[in-house]
């Protein structure tokens, strides 16, 4: 897998405030990425975080339905 161009990353939380996924833009495509190490997008996000080239922003508080 080539290095992905990740231009934004922000956690999403559930109603209990737990991180459940990451909203991100990868190679120009907006997507939701699960917190699963077997997911190639998540693996690459974490590789770039560990390399110090990407920071995942904390989540906004969820809307209460």
């Amino acid at each position: 897998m080539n290095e992905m161009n990740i231009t934004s990353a922000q956690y999403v939380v559930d109603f209990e405030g737990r991180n459940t996924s990451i909203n991100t833009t990868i190679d120009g495509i907006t997507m939701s990425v699960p917190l699963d190490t077997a997911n190639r997008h998540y693996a690459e996000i974490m590789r770039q975080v560990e390399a110090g080239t990407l920071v995942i922003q904390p989540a906004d508080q969820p809307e209460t339905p």
Partner: protein
Amino acid sequence: MAGEIQVNSVTALTESGSNIVLNNVDSATNRTNLGLGSMATQNANAVALTGGSITGTTLVPTTPFSFRNRIINGNLSNPINQRGAASITTPSSGSTGYTYDRWYYDGSTATPYLYQGIEDKNVNNGTYVISWEGSGINAAWKVSTDTTAGNGPDDTTGFLSVSNGGTFTVNEGTEYSKHLWIRFDGTLANLNKVMVEEGTVATPFEHRPYGTELALCQRFFQALGGSGTNYPLASGFTSTNAFYGQGKLSKTMRASPSFSVSGTNSHFGYTQVSVGANANATPTVTANPESFLIIVTSSTSTTVNAAAYLRIEDPATKAFFDAEL
């Protein structure tokens, strides 16, 4: 003492050292005289069957009769193409990415290449033979656990060349622990009928039913939608300006998939009684390998806590769930 029998001055049998040899007749004549027919011949330890059929005999192959091909979507003249790629070398955006199902293309390098990863759960130790149709193609293989940049198939280190019809051996300390990457370069448009199977002799390309091949692909990627103007995606409830729902994937996927929209966000519409609302941004999804939660925001106000359903209203828009290697 050696001896012989002659018929009309022609030697028919010769005896020497307790061995009796038929003379002056070729093997075909001998087989005919003995009533053996011509279907099977044996030379040393190789038996050649040239016709007829075998009935009432149990055959025990060393490799499977079916599902021999570890490559998925290898019939590139009639491929599974959920992403709608224009060709196997045309990603949806940029010069790299998945094109036809299971096939990743990288056109950003001096030598563009194509690869497919065979999932670790299907990679046992053993000897494999690779075959394909098409001229001007080079192939290589390697195994690795990692798919991230610089560690997986984009890193040329560790790839070993293999010829068409050639073999290679996987021998890992822990079986089923690494993905097997098959990489091609050259005249990629010619590539077709790709097959990687256990054994040492390439067999004819295995045509699996189209539905079976699609199901195999959907373990890695699913495109939901594209079937008319009312594709139900999820059921749930509304808040003032959002929909919260849940949906099922059509197959259990390899891993929790990433979600993205192919098409137009506003084609995601949810309906609560008589009030309809359309997405004003890409939905947010939290998925596991079997199902997903989805949040769709809208600028249209709806009743709070009312039952609602979410649909894709235009066949040009699809929900992509991606669990590729």
